[in-house]
C-alpha cells in the first residue's frame, strides 16, 4: 500500500546564513482564502483611512524675506538651489537641502521683483523687476555660509562648484543630498534658525553683490522666463513681449501684436523650445514662435489669466490660472475651448507649477491655499493650507517632482510634500511593496462609496468652506435660471450652454 507523506527537502529549506531569505511555501488555492473581494475591500478601506492618518504635507517654512514673496523659481538641473524675489526688491537664493538662505541681495531691484528664472547653464540666474531692469546674478553658493556647514558634515566634500557644472554630472551627489534632506525631514528640525546669508548680508560692511549683467528697458517688466537650452530669455513688459539674447543689450525680437497688450506672463515651452506663450491684461493668451519671429494666435477668455505654464511632458498643452478662480488646460492646436476646466479654488489663481512628470500641477491662489490637480481631472487631488499662510503668489515643483514650494504674502516660502502621505526617508522593500499594494487597492475600489468619501474628505478653512457654499448657491441659481429660460422659450431655440464653450470669448489670428 502506498502512503503519500508530506516531505520537505531539508536542503532547500535550510538557510546558509541568517540573512538568507526564508523559503515560504504557500498554497494559492482560493479555497483556503475565501472571500477575497470582501477581504480586499476591507483592506482598501483601511488603506484609505491610513492615507488620511499619514497625510502630513507640510515639511518646512523658509523664513527670511522681509516682504511678500512675489516670484520664485526652482533650478532646472539641480535639486537644491531655489530663487525667490520679494515685493520689496529683495532676491534670495535658498539651499533646499539645508533649508537656509545662502545668498541674498536686499536691493536687487528697486520695487517689485516680478520675475526670476535660472539660466540655461545653471550657473547664473536672472531677475526682472518693475524698475525696468533685468539682472543676471551668479549662482555660486559653494563658498558661503550654509554650504560650509554642510561641508563639515559631509567629509569635506566640495560641492560648491557643482552648480556651475554641466547638467549631466553629479547625479550621485544629488541623490546623496536628497537623502540628507530626507533625514532632516524625518528629524523635523526647526528651520527657524537665523539664515546664514551670503556675502552680501553677512555684515553691514560687506559690499552688496553686483550682478554679472543688467539690461535696462523702456518699460517695466512683469514677468520673465529663460530659454531651456540656449542663451535667450523672454520678458513681458507693459507693451510687448521681448526676446533677449544674453549677449545683447537690446531685445532681439519684440512681439507687439494684436494691439498694445500689457503682458503679465511669458513662458518658454520646455520641450518645443521655440514656442512662447504670454498672458495679457486684456484677458488674452497669445502664442509666438521665436523661430519664425511671428506671433501665432491669440485667444481671449472671459477673465484675465494670471499665470501660464507649459506641460513639460506634453509640449502642445499648457495651463492658465484665471482670475475667475479656475485653471484652464489648453491644447495649443485647439484654442477655441479649453480641454479641461480645473475647479476648486475660491480666489483668483495666481501661480501654477507643473510637476516634471507632466501628470499633475500645483496652483496657488489668492484664497490662501494651494491645490494639486491631476492633469486631466476637473477637481483637485489635494488642498494644502496653514493658518498662517496668506495669499499665495508663487508655487513651484522641485525638479524631482517630490516637493512643492509655495511663496506667499506672509513673507514665507513653504515646502510641502507633493503627495501628502508620502514617507520621507528611505523605505524598506517590504514597506514599499505594502504601499504599492495599498495604492492599487485604493485605485481599484476608488469608486466604492465608503472609500470615495474617505478619500474625498478634506477639512478646509472656514473661509474657503463658506466661499464654496456660496459658490454652490450661485451655481445652482444660475443653473435654475438657465433652466427656466429654456423652459419658457420656444422649444429648441435655447439650449443648455456648455461650460467649456463659454470660456473663450474670441480668437484672433
Amino acid at each position, binding site marked *: 500500500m502506498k502512503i503519500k507523506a508530506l516531505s520537505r527537502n531539508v536542503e532547500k529549506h535550510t538557510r546558509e546564513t541568517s540573512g538568507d531569505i526564508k523559503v515560504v511555501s504557500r498554497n494559492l488555492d482560493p479555497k483556503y482564502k475565501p472571500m477575497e473581494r470582501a477581504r480586499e475591500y476591507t483592506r482598501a478601506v483601511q488603506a484609505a483611512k491610513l492615507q488620511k492618518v499619514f497625510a502630513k504635507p507640510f515639511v518646512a517654512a523658509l523664513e527670511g524675506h522681509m516682504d511678500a514673496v512675489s516670484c520664485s523659481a526652482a533650478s532646472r538641473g539641480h535639486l537644491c538651489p531655489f530663487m525667490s524675489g520679494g515685493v520689496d526688491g529683495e532676491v534670495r537664493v535658498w539651499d533646499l537641502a539645508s533649508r537656509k538662505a545662502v545668498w541674498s541681495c536686499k536691493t536687487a531691484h528697486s520695487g517689485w521683483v516680478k520675475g526670476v528664472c535660472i539660466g540655461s547653464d545653471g550657473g547664473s540666474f536672472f531677475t526682472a523687476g518693475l524698475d525696468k531692469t533685468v539682472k543676471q546674478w551668479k549662482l555660486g553658493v559653494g563658498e558661503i555660509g550654509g554650504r560650509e556647514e554642510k561641508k563639515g558634515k559631509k567629509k569635506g566634500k566640495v560641492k560648491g562648484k557643482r552648480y556651475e557644472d554641466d547638467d549631466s554630472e553629479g547625479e550621485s551627489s544629488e*541623490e546623496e543630498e536628497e537623502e540628507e534632506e530626507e533625514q532632516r525631514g524625518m528629524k523635523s528640525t526647526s528651520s527657524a534658525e537665523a539664515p546664514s546669508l551670503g556675502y552680501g548680508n553677512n555684515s553691514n560692511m560687506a559690499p552688496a553683490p553686483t550682478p554679472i549683467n543688467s539690461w535696462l528697458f523702456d518699460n517695466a517688466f512683469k514677468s520673465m522666463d529663460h530659454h531651456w537650452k540656449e542663451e535667450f530669455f523672454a520678458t513681458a513688459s507693459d507693451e510687448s513681449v521681448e526676446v533677449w539674447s544674453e*549677449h545683447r543689450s537690446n531685445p532681439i525680437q519684440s512681439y507687439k501684436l494684436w494691439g498694445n497688450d500689457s503682458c503679465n506672463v511669458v513662458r518658454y515651452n520646455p520641450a518645443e523650445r521655440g514656442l512662447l506663450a504670454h498672458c495679457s491684461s486684456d484677458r488674452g493668451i497669445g502664442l509666438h514662435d521665436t523661430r519664425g*519671429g*511671428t506671433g501665432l494666435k491669440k485667444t481671449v477668455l472671459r477673465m484675465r489669466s494670471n499665470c501660464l505654464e507649459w506641460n513639460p511632458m506634453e509640449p502642445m498643452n499648457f495651463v492658465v490660472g484665471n482670475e475667475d478662480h479656475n485653471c484652464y488646460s489648453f491644447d495649443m492646436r485647439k484654442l477655441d475651448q479649453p480641454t479641461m476646466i480645473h475647479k476648486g479654488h475660491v480666489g483668483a489663481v495666481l501661480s501654477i507649477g507643473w510637476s516634471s512628470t507632466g501628470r499633475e500641477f500645483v496652483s496657488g491662489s489668492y484664497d490662501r491655499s494651494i491645490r494639486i490637480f491631476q492633469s486631466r481631472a476637473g477637481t483637485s487631488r489635494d488642498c494644502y493650507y496653514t493658518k498662517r499662510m496668506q495669499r499665495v503668489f508663487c508655487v513651484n515643483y522641485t*525638479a*524631482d517632482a517630490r516637493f512643492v514650494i509655495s511663496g506667499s504674502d506672509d513673507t514665507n516660502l513653504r515646502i510641502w510634500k507633493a503627495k501628502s502621505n508620502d514617507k520621507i526617508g528611505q523605505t524598506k522593500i517590504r514597506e514599499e511593496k505594502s504601499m*504599492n*499594494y495599498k495604492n492599487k487597492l485604493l485605485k481599484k475600489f476608488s469608486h466604492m462609496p465608503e472609500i470615495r468619501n474617505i478619500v474625498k474628505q478634506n477639512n478646509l478653512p472656514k473661509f474657503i468652506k463658506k466661499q464654496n457654499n456660496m459658490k454652490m448657491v450661485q451655481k445652482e441659481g444660475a443653473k435654475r435660471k438657465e433652466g427656466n429660460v429654456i423652459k419658457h422659450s420656444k422649444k429648441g431655440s435655447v439650449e443648455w450652454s456648455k461650460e467649456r464653450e463659454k470660456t473663450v470669448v474670441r480668437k484672433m489670428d
Partner: protein
Amino acid sequence: MAPRKTSKKAMKTKQSSRKSPLSKSRSTSEPDWGSIKTADEYNDRVLEGVDDEEVDSDIDCFDSEDELMYGSLFTSRGGDSDDDEGDSDDSDASDDSDDEDEEEEEDMLDMLAALDKKTNSHRKEEATSHATLKPSEFSSTTTTASEKLTMDSLLNPLASTSSNFASIRSSMQSLDSTKTTHALQSTVVTDRASRKLAYEASSKDVSNWMETVKANREAETLDFRPKNRAKVTTNSLVNKFTPDNDFERQIQEALEGAGASDERKMVEAEEALAAGNVKGGGGDDDDADFDDDLGSNTNLTLEEFKKRHGQLAKMRSLLFYEERKRHQINKIKSKKYRKIRKKQNEREAGKEMELLRSSDPELARELDEQEATKRMKERMTLAHKNTSKWARQQLRRGNIDTDTRKALSKQVAIGDKLRAKQMGEGGGEDDGDSSGEEGEDEDERLKRKAREVLEGVEGDDERDERENHKSGLFKLAFMQKGIETQREKAKREAMELLEELERGEGGGDEGGEDYDDEEDEEEEEEEEEEGEKRKGERTTIVGEGIEIDLDDDDDDDENIDKNDSDENDDAGKKVAGSMKRKAAEPKDGGFDIASNPWMGDGKADKKGKKKKGKKEVDGSIVDLDKGISMIVGDDSDSVDMTAQGHGSDSDSDGGDEGGKRGLEKLSQSELVERAFAAPADMEDEFKKEKQAMIEKDDPSRKAAEDDNVQGWGSWTGAGVRKPKKRKKLSKKLEAPKVKKAKRADDKLPTVIINEKRMKKMSKFKVASVPYPFTSAEQYERSMAGPVGADWQTTQTVINMTRPEILKKAGRIINPIGKMAKKKNDKRKARF
C-alpha cells in the same frame, strides 16, 4: 535655387515698406545704412536656426554677386562698433544653436516664402523704383509719379554692368507680360495671413509629439528611473576590492605572496602541474588533485602496472556481461519460465537455508521467524482473496453449507472493496496480478464465477427464506414474486454463460462437460422443486400480508372493501399469478434500472421505512412507483417497505394494469414532475404572500389611506353637528394620483422580487458605472480577481501593483526629449 533667390529678393524689398519693431529700434541707433543692413539681418533672423545652409549659401551668393556694388558698405560695417560685433556674434550663435530644428523649420520657411511670392507682384512697383535710382533692389528711395517706369528702363543699366544678371533679366522678362499692378495690402492683413500660416505650421509641427504623448498617457507606468545603472557583479566587486582592515590586508598579502592574485601565474602553475602529471609520476606526490583510477601518483613498475590494468579490464568486462544478462532475463515474459525460475529460486533458497541451519543455527532461526511474520502478514492481507487452502477446498467440494458460503462471500466482498480502492488509486494493475497468481485462464475464471453465482443464488434463496420468516413484510406475495423474478433472471444468465463457455471449449474436455451437464441438470431439478415449494409458501404468505394490510388500513377504500369481501386466498392467488406472468416476461416488468431517477440504494433502515410505508399506503402513485423500483433494483435483503402500497393499489385497480401503467407509460419528465409537484394549497399561499408584498410596497396605497381618515379635522362630542361632507376638489386642484409602481416581478407569477432598498448592501453598490468604464460588465471585469499576495504569485503581485510613476528619490526628471518627437518614423521614445 533660382526660385528661392527671387523670393529672397522679394522679401528683402518687402522689408523697406514693412517696418518691424526690431528694425525700428535698430534704425534709431544706426541711421546711415540701417535700411539696408537691418533688412538683410532681419532676413537672417527670419531664417535663423531654420535652414542654416540655406542662409549661408544665400549670403555667399549675395557676396559674390554684389560685392562689387556694395563692397564699400560691407567693409565699413566690418569694424564699425560694439553693437555690430554683437550682431554678428548673435547671428553666429543662432547659426550654431538651432541645428536640431532644421527640418521642422523648412516647412515654415517654404510657407513664408510662398506668402511673399504672393505679395511679390504687388510690390513690384516699389521694387523697381529702387532700380531707377541705383541698380540695387535694396535701396529705398521714392520715385516721382511723373516718370513712367518700364521694364526695359530698369534692365538696361544692368546689361552694361555684368553678364551675371542674365538670369535675372530672363526672369524679369516673364514678368514683363503682366501689365497691371495692384495697390499694396495693409501690413495688418498680410501679417494676419502670415500668422495664420505660421500657426498652422507650428500646430502641425507640435502634433509630431502626439504619438509619444499618447503612449505616455496610456502607459500603466511611467519609469523615470535612471536607465543605465551599473549592475553589481562578482567580477566588478573583485576588481574594485581594496582591503580595509588588517585582517583583509593580511589575507591579501598572503594571496599575493602565493601568487594567487596574479591570474596569469595561476594559469601557468596549473599548466606546469598538468605537464608533470602527463609524465606519469614525475611530478610531486603531494598533489592529490591529480589522483585517478590508475593511481598515477604511486610509483609502480611497468609489470605491476600491466597486471593491475589487466585485472581492471577483466572486472569491467565481467560487470558488463552480468549487466547484459540481467537485462536479457528481465526481458523474458513467459509465465512458464517464471514458474520454473521461481521453483529454482525456491530450491536454491531451501538449500541455502539448510546449509545455514547447519552452520549458523541462530541466524537461521532468526530468518525463519522473519519468514513466519512475513507469512502471517501475507495471510492477514490475503484473507480476502479466497485463495487460501481452506477456501479452495471448500470451493472444490462444491456442496457448501450456508455458514461457509457466508464467510466466503464476505471474503469476496472485502476483496472487491479493496480492489475497487486500489483501482481508484493505482489503476488496474492489480487485475493482472491476481489472474497471474491464480494461474487460470480467462474462460476458466468466468466459468467458476458463473458456477458460483448459480450456487450462491440457491444459497441466498434459502437464507432469504429464513429471513422472510422473521420479517412479516417479506411474506407479501408481490415481494416474494419480485425477488423470485430477479433471482431467476440472474440464474438464467449464469446458466447461459456456462453453456456458452462449455460449448466454446467443445469436446476437448469431455469430463468437464459431463460434470457441468450433470450439475446443470441437478440444478434445474433443484430449481423446479424449490419453485414449487416457494409458490406454496408464498400463497399463504400473500394471504396473510393482505390481511395485515387491510387491518392496518382504516380508510374507506372502495376497492379494498371489495377485496375484503372476496376470498383472501383467491386474491392472493390472483396476485401471485399476475406476478408470475410478470416473471415470465421480464422485459415488460423490469424497466431500465439505470434510467430510474429514484433508484434506491437498498440500504435503508427497515424500521424507518416501515412507518413511512404505513403512512403512504393511501398515498400517491409516485410512492408506489418508487416502491417498485426499489424492489427491482434491490438486493434480496433490503426492500423498501413503501412497496406495500403498490400491492394494494394494483389490487384495487383490478389487477396488474395500474402498476404496469406506472412503470411503462410515465416518461422521465413526468416522473420528475410528479416527484417535485407541490401541494395545491402551497400555490395559494405563495400568491397570498406575493399580494401582501405588493400591497405593502405600493406607494398609492398610503395616499388612499390618508384620504379616507374619518372625522379628521372635525369636532366631536355631544350636540355637535355632523361634519359637512368634504367638498370634492375639481380635477385641476386634485393632487396627482400616485401611480401604482411597476414591479420587476409583475410578469413573473412564480417569483417574488423584494424591491426594498437594503441599507447594508448600499455600502457595496456603485450608483452608476464609473467614468472610464463604459459598461457594467467592463467595470465588473476590472474588479474581478484579487491583487494581494494571498491569492497571487509574487511576480503577478509585483506586476499588478506597480505604481503609475516610478522614480528615484532625488533624480531630476527632464522635460520630454527631442527624440520623442517623431515625424513619421516609429522610433521608440527615449526618456
